[in-house]
């Protein structure tokens, strides 16, 4: 076996576990919930088991798989571009912008605009507003400094958080509750049309991002390091910021700002499987989707009939894990 064949086989083996986790989640998790579902009734399309499985559980499981994959992939992407293992779409303020947009339409009481869920449009507008603001501020410069972007992101996060609080104060009791619940982040059942649109957007962008894995490897070391090896750095960064922003905005428009998945999954995959983006990115997408789907399923069964939002479950699991993982690091691996 040549080294090339050996590396290809090793990469396939590395992807086997995340792929199995993704597929197993898609097949098994719809059956998990507060009430049991009869397989016989589902096979005979009998109510209500058939409707609960197909219209509620399958859609929310698929949504969790796609949204979790998108958010995790965006996290790994921003970490490569900013060369910071703790960077996420939150760091740049993109999640905050999308949240502000979605909260604005909830506060205004808009449900649908031109036949499209208003939170979608609000989240997309907010995310792109932030991207335009962040990247627009750097127009004309040869390079975009990661440090400047991080500082800008901190400022945007603060402004968006303040505006969300103000909007919540003026929105009235019921809308304030809706805003608060949306901000926790949850995976609710959605229409197959919404799911299909999100899936197409996410899969196309994921393919685009993963196809440039070799370039992300270089960029994660340094701009000059990448440029001196033939990478068109400014164009690659533009592609990365735009793709990452759309992935984030599209996902959290349906789920709310679930942030931890974009931090914890890349960290886990990088330390346990490979830091090489050729393996890392597809693994992160598959594991991220599976993790969010598992958290959503756990949220359904822990305190029935009440449901714990997937974002809360993820934070409760992910927070302690991240602290543990950071404490395991050797001093030489500290940033």
């Amino acid at each position: 076996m040549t080294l090339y064949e050996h590396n290809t086989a090793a990469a396939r083996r590395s992807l086997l576990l995340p792929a199995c986790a993704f597929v197993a989640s898609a097949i098994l998790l719809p059956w998990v919930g507060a009430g049991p579902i009869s397989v016989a009734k589902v096979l005979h399309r009998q109510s209500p088991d058939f409707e609960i499985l197909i219209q509620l559980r399958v859609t929310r499981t698929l949504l969790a798989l796609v949204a979790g994959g998108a958010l995790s992939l965006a996290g790994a992407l921003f970490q490569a571009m900013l060369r910071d293992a703790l960077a996420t779409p939150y760091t740049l303020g993109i999640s905050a912008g999308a949240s502000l947009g979605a909260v604005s339409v909830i506060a205004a009481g808009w449900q649908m605009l031109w036949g499209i869920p208003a939170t979608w449009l609000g989240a997309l507008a907010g995310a792109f507003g932030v991207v335009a603001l962040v990247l627009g501020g750097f127009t004309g410069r040869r390079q975009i400094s990661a440090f400047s972007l991080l500082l800008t992101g901190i400022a945007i996060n603060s402004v968006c958080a303040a505006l969300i609080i103000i909007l919540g104060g003026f929105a009235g009791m019921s809308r304030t509750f809706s805003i608060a619940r949306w901000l926790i982040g949850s995976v609710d059942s959605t229409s197959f049309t919404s799911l299909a649109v999100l899936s197409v957007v996410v899969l196309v962008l994921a393919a685009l991002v993963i196809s440039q894995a070799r370039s992300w490897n270089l960029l994660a070391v340094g701009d000059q390091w990448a440029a001196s090896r033939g990478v068109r750095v400014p164009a690659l960064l533009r592609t990365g910021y735009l793709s990452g922003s759309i992935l984030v905005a599209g996902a959290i428009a349906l789920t709310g700002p679930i942030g931890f998945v974009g931090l914890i999954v890349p960290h886990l995959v990088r330390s346990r499987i490979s830091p090489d983006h050729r393996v890392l990115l597809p693994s992160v997408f598959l594991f991220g989707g599976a993790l969010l789907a598992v958290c959503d399923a756990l949220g359904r069964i822990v305190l029935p009939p009440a449901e714990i939002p997937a974002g809360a479950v993820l934070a409760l699991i992910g927070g302690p894990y991240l602290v543990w993982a950071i404490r395991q690091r050797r001093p030489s691996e500290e940033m």
Partner: protein
Amino acid sequence: MSHLLEVANLQISYGSRIVLRSATLSARSGEFLALVGVNGAGKSTLLDIIAGFLKPAAGSITIAGRDQRSWNLRELSQRVSHLPQAVHADLPYTAEQLVAMGRYPHTDRWFESDEDHSFIREAMERTHCWEYRHRNFRSLSGGERQRVLLAACLAQNASILLLDEPSTFLDIEQQLHCFTVLREEAKTGKLCIAVTHDLNVALTHCSRVLVLADGIVAHDLPAAKAQENDDWLRLFSSRLRIGSTSAGTPWIWYQ
């Protein structure tokens, strides 16, 4: 033999500060040039311009007979490799993964070919870092990291190597080894240009010494004849003196 690299009248400023006023140099394949000068003289800037990272306000660069701007980025990276002063790889790549990145301009394949691996191994063996190829780059000492980065440059197999302080963090033995590797690389027909502050290492290993001062290449000396005129030393310090070793090699000391 025609020049592999020709730099003519480069100008660049950072704000109101003129860094390069009219830098001109030319070099052939097989030469090993030391680029020296005081801090802020523009040595790194000159390398960055040749590598295509910075665009000069005026001047021209010709590489292998063609204007630098007419090469696309990939073609340029197949011909010019650049070793930065430092990289801040926060992500946990292994030493071998970093060196493998040097092969990026030469392939579109998803993984490195067997030929790529032979370049990677040879470069790592030459810079004495093959034995820790599986170690996390972040866990390496400064000197070990520098050897890995030099190996990545060698694995790129470019005809021009631009090295910004390649012996930083290296102990004396490794500094000498680093410059010996570069001298051997030059002997195979490559052009090596190394920024350094160690004048004696430059004089004993390089074929020419270029002294950058006041935004120009103020002195362009064959290393073997550097002691014939010590004007260039005054640009560094009035305490420096130059003589010869018993073998006739120029040698600098300070009073």
